[in-house]
């Protein structure tokens, strides 16, 4: 549908209005989703995430910074990094200018007047419009630069209306789009070759929400890889610059908690709040490895929390290892010969690996790490949607990514249902699937991913219908959330494996990258058949930047279908579809 609309706009001479139209319409949808109820609506005494965010605004504007992380922790104590606190302060400041009672210390707890709710909703929409939407726009203009304007705009539309984020940020009430927006900006600046700026944005992302840590292995190894790629001298210089800038940004973020402004132990207040290892292995029901396997194997009876922490850390590390290895190895393979370093293109050849690496790493955190929330699926969903956005509807990337998105929303169903967001759940899902023109029956016929998708959807529908018709048996009051977890987890595991596979494939393609034919010469051990093909396709005639860009597009899955015939046989490994 999105493409039809864009074509219609072009036909009627309104093509310059596609982007403003899409953005305004998507803001309207965001607002409309926000008309419904939110997390913890009308449920004293603790309410929910909405109240948490509002409470942080209240406490940041009334208390000195030192008390932010220590004040009445039992009632929604602040447990996000300082940037969240600063943004809360800003929102609270503006809000209390409009009406001080909305954020009066303590006495405003649980306030749910329509005016204050609208103010809170508008802060989410405003921050989203200021950070996330520009980041998306920039993404389409940098990462999708080789595609036509129409495709770029279609990508924008796809990303703008991603249902999971709409529901959690504007329905449930959170500010994830800020964190995701910063990460996306970091990716955009990496693509433009401005690594230092990108690193700053990634630190901001981390400073807003610690969940951005899920991306850290990928981003970190990408940057290290870039230094390797540039060679000893300029790479070393970049490494030092990155290190300095990153630590400086961190220091700036935590400045009020550091020695000149506070005694040294003060720094531990935010740190212990941000990383709560004293909570359980998982909370509620979440579609990850621990919760799913807990059905059969009661982890808490078998191991102490300490061991479980170590176990989960180990598994997570193994989970994201392929992405790290892929990035570093890719950089090593394509590293510039010393003589060519002056003519170094601004973009690293490993860039196409980045989205897959981000997906592998964040999904492995989601599946294996400690204390994961169901909402955290948003973190892997960002790279998933990015990969999806450029892929053609016949490709397996498209099939996998839409499946992951839909199941991601499905996995949050118990939460959304509790929040009273059942109707927006249906509406946003239907709208988005129609928008991107998704129909599981029209995927590649009889491919594994098609059959698997259909099976998953049938299971999801059945579960929804059962839940509607039957009350859960009193012996298993949680039967429906547990079944939800059991349906969602295999999908996430497969997506994680799929992302590793794609990373490996793209890594193989790097060896034959036409952008650095000298590098190919330096690595004669690489698979030569592939070099041949890439050269044969006329890669040598185009200039360096364009070639890099076309490879970048490859990583977003666009040429997966196109390339399959000639390229896939050369790549090692069986085809998992």
């Amino acid at each position, binding site marked *: *549908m999105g493409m*039809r*609309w864009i074509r*219609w706009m072009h036909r*009627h*001479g*309104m093509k310059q*209005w596609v982007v403003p*139209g899409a953005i*305004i*319409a998507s*803001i*309207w*949808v965001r*607002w*409309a*989703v*926000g*008309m*419904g*109820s939110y997390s913890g609506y009308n449920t004293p005494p603790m309410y929910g995430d909405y109240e948490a965010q509002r409470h942080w605004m209240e406490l940041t504007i009334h208390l000195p910074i030192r008390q932010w992380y220590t004040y009445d922790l039992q009632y929604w104590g602040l447990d996000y990094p300082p940037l969240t606190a600063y943004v809360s302060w800003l929102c609270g400041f503006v809000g209390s200018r409009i009406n001080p009672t909305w954020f009066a210390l303590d006495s405003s707890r649980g306030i749910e007047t*329509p*005016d204050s709710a*609208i103010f809170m*909703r508008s802060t989410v929409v405003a921050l989203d419009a200021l950070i996330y939407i520009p980041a998306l726009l920039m993404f389409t203009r940098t990462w999708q630069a080789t595609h036509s304007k129409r495709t770029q705009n279609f990508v924008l539309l796809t990303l703008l209306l991603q249902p999971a984020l709409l529901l959690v940020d504007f329905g449930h009430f959170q500010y994830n789009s800020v964190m995701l927006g910063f990460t996306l900006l970091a990716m955009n600046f990496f693509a433009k070759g401005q690594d230092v700026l990108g690193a700053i944005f990634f630190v901001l992302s981390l400073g807003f929400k610690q969940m951005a840590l899920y991306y850290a292995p990928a981003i970190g190894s990408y940057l290290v890889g870039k230094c390797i790629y540039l060679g000893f001298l300029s790479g070393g210089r970049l490494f030092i610059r990155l290190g300095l800038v990153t630590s400086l940004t961190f220091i700036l973020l935590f400045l009020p908690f550091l020695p000149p402004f506070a005694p040294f132990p003060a720094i531990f207040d935010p740190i212990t709040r941000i990383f709560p290892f004293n909570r359980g292995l998982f909370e509620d029901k979440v579609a990850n490895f621990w919760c799913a396997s807990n059905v059969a194997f009661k982890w808490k009876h078998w191991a102490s929390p300490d061991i479980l922490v170590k176990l989960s850390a180990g598994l997570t590390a193994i989970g994201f290892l392929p992405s790290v290895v892929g990035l570093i190895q890719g950089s090593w393979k394509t590293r510039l010969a010393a003589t060519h370093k002056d003519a170094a293109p601004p973009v690293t050849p490993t860039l196409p690996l980045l989205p897959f690496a981000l997906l592998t790493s964040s999904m492995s955190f989601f599946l294996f790490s400690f204390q994961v929330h169901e909402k955290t699926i948003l973190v892997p969903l960002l790279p998933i949607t990015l990969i999806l956005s450029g892929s053609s509807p016949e490709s397996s990337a498209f099939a996998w990514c839409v499946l992951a998105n839909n199941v991601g929303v499905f996995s949050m169903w118990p939460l959304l249902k509790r929040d*009273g967001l059942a*109707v*927006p759940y*249906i*509406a*946003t899902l*239907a*709208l988005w699937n*129609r928008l991107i023109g998704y129909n599981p029956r029209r995927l590649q016929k009889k491919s594994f991913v098609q059959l698997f998708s259909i099976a998953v959807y049938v299971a999801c529908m059945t579960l929804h219908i059962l839940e509607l018709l039957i009350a859960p048996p009193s012996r298993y009051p949680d039967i429906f959330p547990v079944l939800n977890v059991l349906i969602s987890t295999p999908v996430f595991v497969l997506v994680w494996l799929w992302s590793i596979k794609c990373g490996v494939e793209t890594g193989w393609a790097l060896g034959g990258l036409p952008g650095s034919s000298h590098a190919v010469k330096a690595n004669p051990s690489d698979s030569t058949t592939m070099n041949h093909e890439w050269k044969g396709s006329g890669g040598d005639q185009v200039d360096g930047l364009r070639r890099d860009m076309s490879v970048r597009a490859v990583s977003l899955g666009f040429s997966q279908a196109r390339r399959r015939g000639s390229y896939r046989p050369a790549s090692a490994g069986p085809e998992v579809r």
Partner: protein
Amino acid sequence: MMAQPPHASTSREIYPHEEDSNEWSSRFSWLKWDLTPSEWDILLVSTCIKLLLFPAYRSTDFEVHRNWLAITHSLPLSQWYYDTTSEWTLDYPPFFAYFEKLLSVPAALIDPQIVKLENLNYDTWSVIAYQRTTVILTELVLGAVLVKFIRGAAEPSTQRIISASLFLHPGFLIVDHIHFQYNGFMFGILLWSILMARDGKKLASGVLFAVLLNFKHIYMYLAPAYFVYLLRSFCMSPQGEALPIRFLSLANAVIAIFILSLGPFILMGQLPQLASRLFPFKRGLNHAYWAPNAWALVTAADRVLLRYVRRAGFDIPVNSSGVASTSRGLVGDTVFAVIPNIKPSYTFIITMAFQAIFLVKLWRTPTYKSFLTSLTLCGYVSFMFGWHVHEKAVLLVLVPLSLLAAENHAYFRTFLLASCAGVFSLFPLLFTPAETFVKIVYSAIWAFFVFNPLNRKVYWFPTSLPLVILDFLEKLYLLGFPLLQLFVTIFPLLTHSSFVTRSEPPPCTIPFVCPEPKPIKSLGDLEFLPLMLTSVYCAVGLVWAFLRLSIIYLKEQY
């Protein structure tokens, strides 16, 4: 629409069943799902939008309709028009009551509390979701008719835009899906009737209109045009000879419809009670919020004159009760201070006089297009000069006018002005801040995507100096809307009185229905300035569009 196979006559003899099925399928072609992908898109988008608006603000009309569900479900037919358990008594014609009865059956299955008569102001999630869903589902009638409009259109690509614009009309979104009414369904029937007229099935057109009248009697405004058109073009031959058979069949069909609707009540001798419910003649000239019509301008002029008279110290008899009345603004009965008071009979005479002009033209040129224009104008005249008109009645103008939008540039301009002013005049229906964003942004997007392509199709450059000036003035007028909205938004913030208006329940808003609103205590003189300005500014545009359309119609050669 079924192409007759070449060997139809032979095949009938050999395969009688096939002919039957063919006939069957053509008779029931309404049921076929032959939608293009873009039509599915629009259906899906609009449904999703409406779903998202489930939790939005609801006016008292929501409770009105819930109460009617309860009345029709729990009381016998004889009690329907007598029940006064709730102040929102049943005052739509019987077909609507039957319709509510039909809706109350699933409602009782979903949640028996919905149809409990004593359960006043029941507003749990079940009833909200149920009633909102019924609005969406019944609006599919409108969607189906609009699709049929595309299928037989002379210019399908233009009609497609017009159909889409009607299905996604902000008027329906505001009045039906947020404020809560069933206009989409009713206008679906009206457009169905118009479609039948377009396709030459005039008997069906008349019957459908009779059905519509028994759903909601506000459509009586349009009846004169129907009467003249059907009499002239259906009951008379083009040469002017009477065709009594046709007349009788039409009359019988219409009478049958009315008997179906009113019959039970006639038998029970309840007709006077029904009439007193349907036509309560105890209202003021203007509704609480002045509908943007000619009287709004007159009332405004009275206020300005009053100021002027006071300042200049003229010795003119000033009606003192009028001073109090007009300075408050939000009062049911308008009493003028300076200008002589308007009586209901005056408005009636003015309305009839204007309608007569257009009906004469229609009598002389009984074509479909002429009918459509005079139909629009009949609705328009009633809206302009009627007694106690509601702002929502503007849909009666905007919907048929939309069908004319792409005739040529003059029609398009009229449509543009009337739609902008009309939709804007609906904004005060929704006064809560969250819905303010929804209505403004939605209407702006709609206007952009409807006006732009249509304008390109019919664009015409003004050729003489007066036309250039006119063009400029009209554009200036349209530019005023953003400024007016800005003023309306900011004014309450500046005067710090926004909380008062927000906490008040909305002024009564059902056509012909509500009791006059109680005077609101201790509100400042300027409290209603934004409302008045909105009303007057929109009235200027609508009056101008009315004059435009009248002149276009009277000058047009059919």
